């Protein structure tokens, strides 16, 4: 029996080196791997940073979330607001599209990661991705319609006078970069879907 076990394991040694990718390596927990996470999501991190930089360069409103004011942050604003609205249109288009290009590279690395999974994990991950996309679409659509109908304005009435510090009533008026908000929602729904589906197969 022992000889049989050793012999067959040696015979299959080549398959032991090709371990499939495990989704848990990307989820905070005991199996989490920072390097695996960067390998898969490095481009997404870069895309978020690029989106933030392009916002600062090209969008004239300072992010209200952080209450940045030019007089308080002269160095930052001096560096990141060099009158970019005067730049050639080609440069501005490139700056705006860089986060989108990085997002496409992120999708490619995610697809590679999923292709390296075994069949059960691939099924769970793809179903979780579908759940994330549908959940995000629904959340954004509902939020947008409630905002248009004035519901959010009525429920989250802006404080008067405006508070110096962040208050939950400003939730409806956050000027968060739409791109970042979408990514955050996608991740939240992905983790939710993944944990639900994982339990189904345990």
């Amino acid at each position, binding site marked *: 029996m022992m000889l049989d076990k050793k012999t*067959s394991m040696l015979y299959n040694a080549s398959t032991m080196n090709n371990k499939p990718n495990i989704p848990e390596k990307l989820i905070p927990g005991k199996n989490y791997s920072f390097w695996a996470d960067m390998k898969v999501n490095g481009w997404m991190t870069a895309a978020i940073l690029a989106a933030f930089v392009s916002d600062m360069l090209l969008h004239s409103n300072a992010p209200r979330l952080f209450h940045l004011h030019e007089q308080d942050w002269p160095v930052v604003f001096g560096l990141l607001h060099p009158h970019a609205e005067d730049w050639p249109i080609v440069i501005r288009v490139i700056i705006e599209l860089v986060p989108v290009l990085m997002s496409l590279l992120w999708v490619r690395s995610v697809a590679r990661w999923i292709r390296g999974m*075994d069949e059960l994990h691939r099924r769970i991950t793809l179903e979780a991705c579908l759940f994330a996309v549908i959940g995000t679409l629904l959340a954004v659509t509902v939020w947008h319609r409630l905002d248009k109908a004035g519901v959010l304005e009525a429920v989250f009435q802006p404080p008067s006078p405006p508070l110096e510090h962040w208050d939950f009533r400003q939730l409806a008026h956050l000027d968060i970069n739409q791109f970042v908000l979408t990514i955050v929602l996608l991740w939240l729904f992905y983790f939710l879907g993944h944990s639900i589906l994982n339990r189904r197969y345990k």
Partner: protein
Amino acid sequence: MKNKLRELRAAREWSQSDLADQLGVSRQTINAIETEKYDPSLPLAFKVARLFKKPIEEIFEDTEK
């Protein structure tokens, strides 16, 4: 779908990780197949049959008959 994977594995004194390594899948997949929560794909079922040197029908039982 019922299967005899656990018995065949136990007869060879393999752990779920050992079997998973030999089939190139995760331990969770082996566990899900043994607890009948997941039906393997055809290529994986053939791999299992080849590993245990038995016909597929002897390992996996179609419960819809």
